[in-house]
């Protein structure tokens, strides 16, 4: 897998242009409107943050992009492809990986195997080859690649431990490693700083930046930790009641009166960035 770089130029221009286009996406659960005509774009190679009060529809959007929830209206285009026609298990192959707000690892597998499962789309061994024992070369290759990802996230010493019973911050890093294993173009992080200590949050911000460059990623994150959002984002989209109320670079969003009223006014914790 190491040879052909999946992020190479062939498909689309690597710089500029939108990687993900969300156009008029609406989601309704019975009478509840979770997303209401949401429209925005994420530029290739950028770090985009989705912020807003609890219940604004941020995770709902993640679940629409992951195809876990159906969109009632609108369209989602990823890399020139209509994402709403892709089945849920096809999203990873299309180039999107994500983490979950409360961590969704596989506790019955070791840390290394969790990351190897993350590389599922990179392999091709099925039932027949698996049974007769022809899975070894692929296994070894995946183990080596997963190990290198674990090393880059400082998790290599945990490789053979079960992915359970570890500190929450560690589990979140393991989940991040799993997401990276599929070599995604778009990495979606659902509250990556949630539950981390102050020091860990600083480290996380640096890590996200570094990974973006190393893995050639575009990042979409949902986050409540304003200091981190302001520090690392290129672009911020603010949601309230399923609607976009503002968007732009951090400087602009921070001073937008609507945003301050809806969100920052209540959530600013005093260290809200430079």
């Amino acid at each position, binding site marked *: 897998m190491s040879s052909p770089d999946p992020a190479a130029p062939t498909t689309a221009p690597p710089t500029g242009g939108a990687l993900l286009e969300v156009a008029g996406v609406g989601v309704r659960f019975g009478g509840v409107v979770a997303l209401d005509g949401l429209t925005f774009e994420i530029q290739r190679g950028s770090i985009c943050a989705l912020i807003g009060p609890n219940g604004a529809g941020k995770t709902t959007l993640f679940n629409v992009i992951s195809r876990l929830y159906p969109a009632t209206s609108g369209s989602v285009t990823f890399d020139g492809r209509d994402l709403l026609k892709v089945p849920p298990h096809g*999203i990873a192959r299309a180039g999107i*990986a*994500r983490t979950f707000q409360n961590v*969704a690892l*596989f506790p019955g597998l070791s840390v290394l195997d969790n990351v190897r*499962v993350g590389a599922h789309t990179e392999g091709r061994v099925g039932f027949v080859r698996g*049974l007769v024992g022809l899975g070894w070369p692929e296994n070894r290759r995946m183990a080596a690649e997963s190990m290198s990802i674990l090393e880059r996230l400082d998790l290599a010493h945990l490789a*053979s431990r079960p992915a359970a019973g570890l500190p929450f911050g560690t589990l979140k890093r393991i989940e991040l490693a799993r997401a990276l294993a599929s070599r995604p173009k778009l990495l979606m992080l659902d509250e990556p700083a949630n539950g981390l200590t102050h020091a860990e949050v600083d480290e996380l911000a640096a890590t996200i930046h570094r990974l973006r460059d190393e893995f050639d990623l575009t990042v979409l994150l949902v986050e409540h930790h304003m200091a981190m959002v302001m520090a690392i984002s290129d672009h911020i989209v603010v949601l309230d009641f399923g609607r976009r109320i503002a968007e732009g670079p951090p400087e602009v969003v921070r001073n937008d009166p609507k945003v301050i009223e809806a969100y920052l006014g209540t959530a600013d914790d005093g260290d809200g960035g430079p």
Partner: protein
Amino acid sequence: MNRTTVRVVVGVLVAIAVLYAPYYFEPVWNRELSRAAYFAIAAMGLNLLTGFNGQISIGHGAFFGVGAFTSAILVDTHGWSFEATIPAAAVLAAVVGVLVGIPALRVKGLHLALVTLGLAVLFPRVGQKYIDGAGGVALVRPKRREFDSLLSFLADDQWQYLETVLIAALLFLLAWNLVRSRVGRAMIAVRDQEVAASTVGINVARVKVGTFALSAAYAGIAGALSVMIDRAADATNPLLAFRNSIEFLVAVVIGGTATITGPAVGALILVLLRRHTDGLIEGKEVLSPAIFGAALITMIYVLPEGIVGGLGKLFGRLFPARAAVPATAGAAGPDPSTTTTTPTEEEP
């Protein structure tokens, strides 16, 4: 001594014992051990489905029955050699497995258990309706000589034992390969966290149906072998498929869910226990199921993760993995949440 050495030594000793057994024991006992071997195959099939993939089935007696009748009918009325019927039994059981596995995608946990239970209850009825054995009942008994030893230096019971055990060993090896491959990890991922499994690109439906088919094939092969050992495929007893289904599950649980050797250990214990409790109290045979049950309860109480699961933990503590764990983490030995979870009870 590191853990690899210990494993190899234990493995070699077990292999020698298993291969020497038919020369040591009486034919009656060889038959009993053969029964344990085919039982182990069915239990391994169920273990792949329930232990590794998290889909509960109390209907594997039906797949076992499909395999048994396929084999018995092909030998008895179509003149096939017994060995040739084994793949046919596997394929037919797998087809039925797919037919059950697809609708099973819509149900989980206890509901799935009930659906598969229905399968076990239904099987003898269907069998009685469509199968006419000798005397018009759903009982097919191929002639005894169909299963005669093909090697002059082996008596029939030895031959049958070795054939069953070698097929079981092969199928266990295949299962071991599988669970350590990409598909095996996908099976466990689907069991542990279905949503996350799908977001990393696992086609959950395909993995589940595929596992169902494979699991049914194992049960079908076990059924075919049971015809050789018990010399009959039987659907006259409406409770047989049901009882088999339960016993496969029991073998998996007392052996150790989601382990490779667990089903074999569980099957052996189950078969021996059944035989020993049967005649334990002269003249009080009605009590034997109670003793049998009490023994099972005791076993689960002492080793809740099954014999292999429990011993594996002990083994892990006696021979820690060489990749040294940091001092702080190494002490966290008996953490119930860390070892192979038994998903069977937790699925919503």
